[in-house]
């Protein structure tokens, strides 16, 4: 069966609607479909639409996502009794391996599903590691290596 005749193509706004219902793994795979889809996936309107549909499918609202060691948890609130449940989501990007001293890391979530992670045991002479990561796409990036205070000049 021929799926389409040559001149027919699906309007882009329709494919965007359809793609916004895909799980993240397929979405990342379909970045290879064409350059348009490569950039679409990280476009902020699309990310919002995808998140909106993701919540529709999974039900409940994801309130907060916490990262403990290299595992990422979504904390969801039940509508009725307000009890929070915690679900383990995908393994976080191997951020952990990039950090020399595996201690605990603090984390907060930004609006758009990105996370900022930093070293809990930070003190003013330490080098502070800050990473921005997106656990759903498993992308991580160190944005800054900040030296706070003065680095010791001698041992």
């Amino acid at each position, binding site marked *: 069966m021929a799926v389409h005749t040559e001149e027919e193509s699906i309007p882009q*706004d329709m*494919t965007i609607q*359809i*793609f916004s*219902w*895909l799980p993240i793994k397929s979405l990342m795979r379909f970045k290879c479909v*064409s350059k348009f889809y490569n950039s679409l996936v990280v476009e902020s309107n699309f990310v919002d639409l995808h998140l909106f549909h993701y919540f529709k499918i999974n039900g409940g609202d994801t309130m907060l996502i916490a990262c403990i060691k290299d595992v990422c948890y979504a904390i969801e609130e039940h509508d009725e009794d307000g009890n929070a449940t915690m679900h383990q989501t995908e393994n976080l990007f191997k951020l952990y391996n990039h950090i020399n001293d595996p201690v605990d890391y603090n984390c907060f979530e930004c609006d758009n599903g990105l996370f900022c992670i930093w070293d809990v045991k930070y003190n003013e002479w330490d080098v502070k590691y800050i990473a921005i990561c997106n656990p759903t796409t*498993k992308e991580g990036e160190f944005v800054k290596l900040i030296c706070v205070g003065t680095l010791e000049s001698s041992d």
Partner: protein
Amino acid sequence: MASSSSSSKTGLKKMLTLKSSDGDEFELEESIVIQCQTIKHMVEDGFSLIPLQNVDTKTLTKIIEYMKKHAEKTESNKEEIKNFNKEFVKGSFDDQFELVSAANYLHINGLMDLLCQSIADRINNKSVRAVREIFNISNDYTPDEEEKVRDEHKWAHEGGEFDESLD
């Protein structure tokens, strides 16, 4: 709740006529048709014959079938509606795309969600090549570029064989 459009109080149900792009006319109760936002606005503007130039008879018949069923929705027939939906989304990709296009034009949000989600489910496990074929998307990558994008997200390409079929 206050409703300004309660025109069927007399017992006489208000009827509307939908006309497909092929010229076929369908007479329906207003209460069924107002699920569709586009038509609802036209009804509010006083239209009773509604020409739908972007929707052919075949597609309109399916859309009406959907609206009729969903107008019957109550607390007790949830399972029945669910089964109806399941049947409704069967059919070739081409037919589904026609329906998405019509649902989008008519602003039937529930139908739009149903169709898009079901198509997404169907392509979820497809290969990149199959997706290009199904949506008629041309590949504008050079082989090197494509390889690079693939390498950036290797994990997304792992985990078994992807479906190459186009249906």
